[in-house]
């Protein structure tokens, strides 16, 4: 049975997320979405099967319900979850592989989260100054030894942090195989096997990115059924007239919630990409537009909004206080800059 169930988030954990640090929820959602996208991109470049990358996605989501998002750099936590899951899978990857891949993804040369790589959504905004398509400059992602070493150290620290936060439970059951089994049971709804299967899996994979954390609130069987339902709607397949989802132990209410949740990720994702771009444009100098969001971006965004944030290293018990003395803020900014210097020095 353990192969079909996942540990789920408790209501307290979901509630507590709202009070972690002073991070407004929409920023948390943005961080969640972009980091999960980064994890997927890294999985592709590391040539990991989706079954491994998806598990890393779920692990990462769980981790962020236990520990505040700002306590580690987002990309480091993403790398550590991929490293950990791959290590336990038949496809282990070396720290150096991870360093190379993440170093590239975070470099200006990568297409990851750069405006030109975004799917066309031109109607929403006055077009930003024409983004120069990322040109491949190998120097951008050259990995000097000291950068690799510090990445490696952070990777191991994050790995043990994740394990500690999750009580060393790395078990993740994915709904993908279940979905295929259910489709077989439904005789693929009399449509093309590959079309509806692909669509179903696409919904399941997209759901990994949802800030609603569907994988932490529903068991795999429910996710599988909801994905099939959506896919069947999309391809116009005829579903059984009866309440067929009950055969797979999913009730109508949960199904409805998941169906809407899965369908909303697409629009949500587009909006969040725009948010990231806007944030990046606000913080970075013109030369380095786009790319993966970092803690520094979030801190900058918070400053702009007049929200102060504690160190974020532990507890996350800092409140929202916009009335901080100015020199405190400057002091904090200085400290952050120092902290970022090492990371920053490596990234370029």
């Amino acid at each position, binding site marked *: 049975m353990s192969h079909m169930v996942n*540990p789920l988030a408790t209501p307290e*954990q979901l509630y507590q997320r709202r009070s972690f640090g002073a991070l407004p929820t929409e920023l948390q959602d943005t961080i969640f979405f972009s980091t999960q996208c980064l994890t997927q991109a890294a999985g592709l470049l590391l040539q990991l099967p989706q079954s491994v990358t998806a598990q890393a996605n779920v692990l990462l989501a769980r981790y962020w319900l236990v520990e505040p998002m700002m306590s580690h750099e987002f990309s480091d936590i993403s790398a550590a979850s991929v490293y950990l899951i791959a290590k336990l899978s038949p496809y282990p990857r070396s*720290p150096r592989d991870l360093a190379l891949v993440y170093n590239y993804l975070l470099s200006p040369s990568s297409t990851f989260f750069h405006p030109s790589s975004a799917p066309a959504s031109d109607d929403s905004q006055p077009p930003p100054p024409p983004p120069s398509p990322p040109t491949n400059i190998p120097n951008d992602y050259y990995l000097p030894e000291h950068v690799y070493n510090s990445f490696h150290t952070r990777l191991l620290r994050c790995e043990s*942090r994740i394990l500690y936060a999750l009580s060393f*439970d790395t078990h993740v059951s994915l709904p993908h195989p279940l979905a295929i089994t259910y489709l077989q049971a439904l005789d693929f709804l009399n449509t093309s096997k590959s079309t509806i299967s692909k669509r179903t899996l696409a919904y399941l994979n997209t759901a990994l990115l949802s800030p609603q954390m569907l994988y932490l*609130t529903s068991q795999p069987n429910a996710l599988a059924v909801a994905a099939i339902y959506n896919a069947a709607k999309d391809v116009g397949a005829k579903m059984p007239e009866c309440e067929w989802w*009950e055969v797979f132990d999913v009730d109508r209410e949960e199904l409805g919630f998941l169906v809407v949740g899965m369908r909303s990720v697409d629009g949500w994702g587009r909006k969040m990409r725009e948010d990231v771009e806007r944030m990046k444009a606000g913080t970075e100098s013109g030369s380095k537009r786009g790319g993966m969001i970092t803690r520094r971006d979030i801190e900058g965004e918070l400053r702009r909004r007049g929200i102060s944030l504690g160190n974020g290293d532990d507890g996350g018990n800092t409140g929202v206080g916009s009335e901080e003395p100015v020199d405190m803020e400057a002091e904090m900014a200085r400290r952050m800059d120092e902290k970022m210097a090492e990371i920053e020095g490596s990234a370029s």
Partner: protein
Amino acid sequence: MTGKGKSRWADSAEDAALEAQLKKEKEEKKRLKAEKARKAEAEKKKREAEAAAAAQRQQQQQQTGDDDDANGPPAKRRRLSPDRDVAAAPTASSNDSSKLLRFEGGRFGKCRSVENYDKLNDIEEGAYGWVARAREIETGKVVALKRLKIDPKDRSGLPVTGLREIQILKDCSHRNIVKLKEVVVGDDTSKIENIFIVLEFLEHDLKSILEDMPEPFLASEVKTLLLQLCSGIAYLHSHYILHRDLKTSNLLLNNRGQLKIADFGMARYVPDPPPPKLTQLVVTLWYRAPELLLGAARYGPEIDMWSVGCIFGELLTREPLLQGKNEVDELTKIFELCGLPTDESWPGFRRLPNARSLRLPSSSSSSSSSKPPSTGALIRAKFPLLTAAGVSLLASLLSLNPSRRPTASEMLEHEYFRQDPKPKQEAMFPTFPSKAGQEKRRRRETPNAPQRGQKVQDLGQVDFSSLGGIFGSGREREERGGGFSLRMV
């Protein structure tokens, strides 16, 4: 139940005394049980009442929940599904027309601190870490704390073997597999360096019992132990887990005669059919199957069954069955006991990487008149007191050809366990002084499980042709075939 046992086992004065004592204990237990049953009855009623109340509450909650949905910010509101599942699990039937299965996967959260436990005494410092007996302060329960060995210089992070052990034990729930209670860490959580696995505590391991007992286990006791071992392994194999380090020191026994498989440091999930490349360096040498010694990279649950055969033999004699000094010696000892492999008994063994360097008597030279003795005959010679069914079981477990070995579930059905003497009831097991409970154990001289990343030893050129001569000349009656030497060419 007691009467039956008496006729079979009360054959000496000592046994009779023990029997009487056990009987007394049993009566005491019976009384307690009756009392417990009464209590349970009362509790059950109470629970039913509670469940009904919960169902009502839940329905109300659902209604109010729906209301909330309408008012609150729609997308942000999280459904409290885990909570509801807990409430719904026992009352699912009363919910509505359709019965939906609720899956309970537990939850996740931070590790607790090791400071929740009081250390009582060290049990063992083994190759894979340190084990101590400890008491949980809150509940007073005695547990075993196993420290995960971490090499701070190892730049690949937490050892994958330790992580696999934790994950596999977490996934397992069987009475013959040691239970993992939780994982705790040292107090300084800024650096996770001290990781302890909290396991249920069992008083003994089979190895030290065997070393210290003046008389070997009775046939009925051997059967009970084997049955328990086997049902644990059947559970593991049906869940696609290979243990890969079965040996008597990894089998724990409590004072109630219950055997549990422990130490999953080498275990892993292996799909069926097995992947083409698994590490060959698994299983402690004396329990390692011949196909591993011959360098097979593709292997399956059969390697655990070979170890079961070795353990079977050890239970009978109190001595490890095949104490090879190194890989070559181990293989020699195996061929001594089981005979040499032939193309008929083990088709394809010559294709294994290390088999090429073996020099075996060609099948033509061992003429049809002097056929080499079968494994069964050799084993019968070694274990003269074992029944025919016992010999056939042991011989099949020790088949050189892995596909000839029974699976764990086949073994459970074996004739041997149905013959008299019947397996002894666990509760009737003799008790032993616990070393783990009181005192430090002496270091053992058994070889350790292979370390990850070690080089697989090349067997080099090994000449077994002399063995063929020995076996060819019908030395069936000999229990031990010494007196020949192994030439490294």
